């Protein structure tokens, strides 16, 4: 059954790695719905958050292929239910539309959005949430004309209490120590 999966990967921060990761998807003709890469809590280690719509079997295969890359420390996959995730969206509307009625103001309140900047010509609104939520606000605002709209890729953290990376790095250190001891 195809469903949304969130793939997360911890990698060295090396040039070209983004390319190496994404061609794994391209080769299998899997579309990436959303992709975010940024530095993790540990300096020098990047975190990829990739959303795809696929069957589990294929997701497992892709995660193994990602993990096989030399510069990848560890990769995981999760269903949406297993993670807390957010996206951020920015909307630009005319300030005139904001002044003409109280509709936009009400929408901002009811969607828990906020205003980032107001100029004479335009107003920029920010909303974080799931895609359906940022989309709902877009559709609401668009009744008054949205000049510009942008939505970020997804960011996500697991529901487990520990950061899996630190746990993983500890395990790997232990593995290397064991291997070195064995080699001697």
């Amino acid at each position, binding site marked *: 059954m195809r469903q949304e999966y969130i793939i997360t990967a911890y990698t060295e921060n090396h040039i*070209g790695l983004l390319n*190496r990761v994404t061609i794994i998807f391209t080769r299998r003709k899997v579309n990436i719905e959303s992709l975010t890469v940024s530095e993790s809590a540990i300096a020098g280690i990047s975190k990829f958050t990739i959303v795809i719509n696929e069957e589990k079997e294929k997701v497992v295969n892709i995660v193994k292929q990602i993990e096989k890359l*030399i*510069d990848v*420390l560890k990769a995981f996959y999760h269903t949406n239910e297993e993670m807390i995730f957010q996206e951020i969206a920015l909307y630009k509307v005319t300030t005139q539309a904001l002044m003409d009625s109280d509709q936009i103001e009400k929408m901002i309140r009811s969607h828990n959005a906020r205003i980032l900047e107001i100029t004479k010509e335009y107003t920029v609104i920010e909303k974080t949430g799931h895609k359906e939520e940022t989309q709902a606000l877009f559709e609401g605002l668009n009744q008054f004309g949205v000049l510009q709209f942008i939505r970020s890729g997804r960011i996500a953290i697991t529901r487990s209490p520990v950061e899996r990376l630190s746990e993983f790095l500890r395990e790997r250190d232990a*593995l290397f120590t064991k291997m070195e001891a064995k080699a001697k």
Partner: protein
Amino acid sequence: MTTKNEKIKNSPKEPVEMSGSEAMIRSLVAEGVDTIFGYPGGAIMPIYDALYDFGHHVKHVLVRHEQGAVHAAQGYARVSGKVGVCFATSGPGATNLITGIADAMIDSTPIICITGQVTSGLLGTDAFQESDVIGISMPITKWNYQITSAEEIPEAIAKAFYIASTGRPGPVLLDITKDAQFGKLQFAYEKCTKIRSYVPEFPTDKKHLKKAADLINEAKKPYLIYGQGILLSGAEKELLSFIEKTGMPAASTLLGISALQSDHPLNMGMLGMHGNYAPNIKTNECDVLIAVGMRFDDRVTGNINTYAKQAKVIHIEIDPAEIDKNIKTDVAIVGDAKHTLRLLTTLVEEKKHTAWVNEFLQSRQKEHDKVIVNDLTPTKPGLTMGEVVRLSTDLTDNKAVIVTDVGQNQMAAARYARFDQSRLWVTSGGLGTMGFGLPAAMGAKFGAPEKEVILFVGDGGIQMTIQELGTISQENLPVKIVILNNDFLGMVRQWQELFFEKRYSFTEITSPDFVKLASAYGIPGASVSDRKELETAMKEMINAKGPYLLEVKIEQEDNIFPMVPAGGTVSRCLLGADEL
């Protein structure tokens, strides 16, 4: 007076200032490189200039095309077990390596390709002979890296060797800009032993090992299939002890050939599309299938939905990404074949499965009567590929390195060559690269100079990389070339005959006079088409001190059988066209 050459044996303890190019060559020497296949050009000239001083340590072989260099590096690696190294310049030099890199990737061959690149300031400007070889080779390398300053060279080379040769081996490409070659650095060399994001081999899971042993001990019809993993991990002895203790029959993938002696009583032959009859059909009759160091390629499995469904499948494999990729396993043991088999052998009971082994032998007899007898002792006048191949290994006591190209020549060689030792078999498996044979044979001879190297190649494949006759001639390299000439692209013609109503669309191919051509290169040769002349001609070829080309004109429209048609089931392995 000590020369430069004498001083370079050991890498300096204290850093010494030198150019990037010299550091590159010294790093290779420190890694034990003795042979480099390459072709110079603008962007790699500083490295070639440095190489000029290192003639006593490193043999450079000037190929005639970069594809020849990379296949030669593969052939070298496959027979020697060492990392094969090749050099090419930027742009077209680098792109000409691509086929061989893809071949090495899919066949897990450790090679390092070093390509020159335009000066770093020119990167991305469409400079003369600039190509994005890092981008191009990304999906077909285990690792690649662009070096843009001299200081990076020793570490990058050390990493390249570590990555190429450990775990599941594979190709590494290093792209080095011209300014990095000219630049200076303080050189000291240290081998790489650890990369925190890369675990070449995971420790064996003892629980899984025990589960596997239990399954094997309870099995009535256990069957072991093995691949190149045996050769890559040096597990030939462990494989032997394991099958002898458990008394189970074993069969090889195309790339696993020569890991087990051909005439071992438990060696049942080869799996796959044109493999032997018994190994294929017994896959669907065994109760426990133990797969070691192989990846369930579609040419081995046929239709995966009808593959070994009745059996418990145990998969021993170093690459975790191969587990459950094609065939779902009941027990998976991630680890190298040598360690894992050694551990597993201690846990299994000594057994004899005489009745089960006899079933294999009966099936073998069936194949013998219907196929092998016609291939090896034909009654029709036309020569068969099988009889030519078998004669060559008979005359060399099964001790020759057999290299093949791709197609019918390859399948005939895989089926009929006999091997007494391991690492005697070099072929392009996963990628099926026509044109692989001649340059790979060249590399194999450099990798195992003490062994006889015999190439089997078709009239199609030889013409893809025939320019390497020039290299063989210049090196006076004793490679024995057997062209199995049927004036067709034989394997495609076979498929056209069987599956495309004999519509021979563009498979008839003409050839030059191969003997004359060889002669133009100063290589002696002969052409035979008569069975009576074959043995004498073959002996003359084997006895030749230098290179030799023997063209054998064989039956034009012979087919390779048995055959599991693409997507078919392994239990329906056809012994002839009449069974289609």
